[in-house]
């Protein structure tokens, strides 16, 4: 019993300057469910990818039982009995359940005909109590069914170590409860070793035997039996406890300017909120809880299912980008590389995007603007050559130079160096002095605690809590983990 199924010893992973994982050590035994709890960017997915052969550690060692374990591909991992259930891209939507099972079988397997795969699939499904039609196209399945199929497919190779990456992120509570029960049984009854990563405390409590908390790529609390931990303690460890809770004075706020009522779109809502003149409304939440969907519907890019969003009486949903700009709404997108800048174009050309500045004056206009916003670079430089912080300052220069009436800022400082972060935070705060409204969506709770006049927490596409200063970090942390 006591040889761990899988051991991670001092593993680090660097992506250039970014340390995704620093000296992570943990182990998972046979017959147990080990939960890895952490926010987005805590390094959970990187760890999973390394274990599954999709990525490699920069340093450190992996052991499978007592043998060194160095998977160079998912195939190696499966051969060693380690299988990952990924969040995305793992199923082919134009194929049936059976075909997807077959795809993951090694060609050297004896059982590579459709009928064999179909009967295996049905046998496994009925053992776990799933209802799956082997001939249904994956593209036509509900997300819940797809998730169950993912699990079945992972179990098809009969692994002794099963890795689950946010397995319930798209499921309803009832669906996820039944899935977690099955996961538990797979560990306890079949003596498998199961590692699952999540940011939901509720699931940790429901399914895990032991829990490890990961933050900023480090283990902040070593594995401990779940029974010995309190939800509040885990939540605090997950979001961190740095104490720069600079209590902000309650400001006198003006009239509501941005009004969102029962707004719903695919993957988000219905939710309601309002941002007043001179106010910073912070939206906290672990990434992937509907923030990008909220962003898309608020800037008019995603079709709404119901509800409304108005700014000073103007409808915001399903509008043309130029219309948004004519309402003097500034927008800092979360997907900086893809939607904010054109990397292979010059800085001065990027300053024109969505603006009415004359093309011929781009160069003269750009120079002072870049200096004013302290963008280290020059107008002729390709935007892609800017560092992350300078690129974001360039976006800010473009979006905020015209004193916007509303600022929609999505993860504005994610991944930036401290200097640029401080600069941008101040710039965003400064816009409120003129009576502008700021909607600030961030996965960084510390940031919101420092800048927001009010904080709402998003979880599973919904607003699950609203907090006013002085902020109660622990309560917010619980809300972020879905325990509001």
């Amino acid at each position, binding site marked *: 019993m006591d040889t761990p199924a899988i051991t991670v010893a001092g593993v680090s992973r660097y992506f250039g300057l970014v340390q995704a994982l620093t000296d992570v050590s943990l182990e998972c035994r046979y017959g147990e469910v080990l939960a890895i709890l952490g926010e987005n960017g805590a390094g959970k997915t990187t760890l999973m*990818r390394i274990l599954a052969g*999709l*990525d*490699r550690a920069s340093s450190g060692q992996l052991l499978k039982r007592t043998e060194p374990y160095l998977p160079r*591909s*998912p*195939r190696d991992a*499966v051969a060693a009995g380690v299988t*990952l259930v*990924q969040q*995305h*891209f*793992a*199923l*082919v*939507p*134009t*194929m049936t359940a059976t*075909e*997807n099972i*077959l*795809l*993951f*079988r*090694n*060609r050297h397997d004896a059982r*590579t*005909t*459709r009928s064999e795969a179909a009967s295996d699939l049905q046998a496994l499904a009925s053992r776990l109590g799933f209802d799956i039609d082997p001939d249904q*196209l994956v*593209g036509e399945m509900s997300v819940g069914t797809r998730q169950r199929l993912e699990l079945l497919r992972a179990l098809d190779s009969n692994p002794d170590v099963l890795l689950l990456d946010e397995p319930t992120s798209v499921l309803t509570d009832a669906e996820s409860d039944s899935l977690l029960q099955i996961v538990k049984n797979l560990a306890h009854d079949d003596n498998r070793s199961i590692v699952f990563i999540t940011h939901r405390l509720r699931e940790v409590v429901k399914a895990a035997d032991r829990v490890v908390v990961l933050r900023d790529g480090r283990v902040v609390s070593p594995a401990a039996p779940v029974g010995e931990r309190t939800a509040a303690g885990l939540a605090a460890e997950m979001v961190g406890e740095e104490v720069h809770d600079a209590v902000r004075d309650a400001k006198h706020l003006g009239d509501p300017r941005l009004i969102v009522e029962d707004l719903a779109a695919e993957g988000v809502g219905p939710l309601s909120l309002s941002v007043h003149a001179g106010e910073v409304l912070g939206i906290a939440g672990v990434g992937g809880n509907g923030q990008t969907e909220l962003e898309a519907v608020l800037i008019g890019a995603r079709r709404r299912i119901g509800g409304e969003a108005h700014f000073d009486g103007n409808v915001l949903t399903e509008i043309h980008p130029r219309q948004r700009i004519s309402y003097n709404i500034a927008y800092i997108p979360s997907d900086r590389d893809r939607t904010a800048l054109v990397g292979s174009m010059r800085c001065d050309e990027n300053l024109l995007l969505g603006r009415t500045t004359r093309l011929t004056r781009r160069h003269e206009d750009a120079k002072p603007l870049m200096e004013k916003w302290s963008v280290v670079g020059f107008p002729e430089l390709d935007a892609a050559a800017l560092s992350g912080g300078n690129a974001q300052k360039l976006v800010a220069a473009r979006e905020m130079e015209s004193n916007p009436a509303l600022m929609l800022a999505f993860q504005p400082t994610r991944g930036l160096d401290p200097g640029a972060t401080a600069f941008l935070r101040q710039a965003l705060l400064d816009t409120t002095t003129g009576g502008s409204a700021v909607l600030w969506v961030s996965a960084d709770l510390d940031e919101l605690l420092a800048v927001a006049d009010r904080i709402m927490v998003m979880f599973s596409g919904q607003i699950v809590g609203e907090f006013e200063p002085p902020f109660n970090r622990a309560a917010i942390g619980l809300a972020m983990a879905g325990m509001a």
Partner: protein
Amino acid sequence: MIIAEVDIISIAFWATVLAAGVRLAVSVGMAALGEMINERAGVLNLGLDGVMLIAGFAGFAASFETGSPWLGLLVGLIVGATVGALFAQLVVVLRADQVVTGLGLALFGVAFTAFLNREIYGGGSTPPRAPIPGTWEIPILKDIPLLGQSLFSQSQVAYLAIFITILLIVFLQRSYWTIVLDAVGEEPRAADAAGHSVVAVQFIATVAGSALAGLAGALLIVGQLGFFNTNITAGRGFVAIALVIFGRWRPAGIALGALLFGVLDALQFRFQTLDTAIPFEFFIALPFIVTLIAVAFGSRRAREPSALTIPFFRDTE
């Protein structure tokens, strides 16, 4: 006029048209089947016409020099595979743009074979002829009305093409490799996660597809015509690409489509002098119109592979 009307309803007329249709479908259908294989792996080979010409010319040379058309067909297959390997090296391994590389290959094929033909065989209006395989008449069956002439009294190369088509239909229906092939073309990340090498599958599919395209060129030039001329495929490679779409990336659909094209083409020759109510060219265009509508409104399974022309990069690369 009256003679023509009588003609049109006679079984003999349709039997000839059908037989000619099968003959015309052989090469273009084989090329389309080849293209289907690489497209299902996500690789578009717009240079199909070039492959057909280069392989067809090589096959012709082999057939002419040795007097054996069967050897010519084999050479066509091998040269097709070789050209395919070069193309795959460019677009799969180096990830060069598939559209431009393919067009370059198509243009190169026309020009280069014209050049070689001129240098080696004079390129005149009376090109040298190589022997072509004979026909097989299958007793009794060949006397079946309407179908007998078209299906059981054909050139030997037509039987070869039909045999390969049936082989592909069966193989692609049932096989494990079909699933891997389609996954690479649809969701390369999923195929990668399942442990299949996307690059290897695309490379092999491109070589296999070009081999069949090469064979297609040889079927036409070595197996049916027995001589070579500048641009002798007359754009059949491009028609084959459209056929792949018409056949919705399925061998049976493509075979049927090729047959339909062949029959329409055969009819066109016979109708050219007639003044019909609906212009005959409309029927030539019809399959393409139908194809466009089908691609636009078809379900996702009826559409092109999602990753067609998109090079694959693994995240961690």
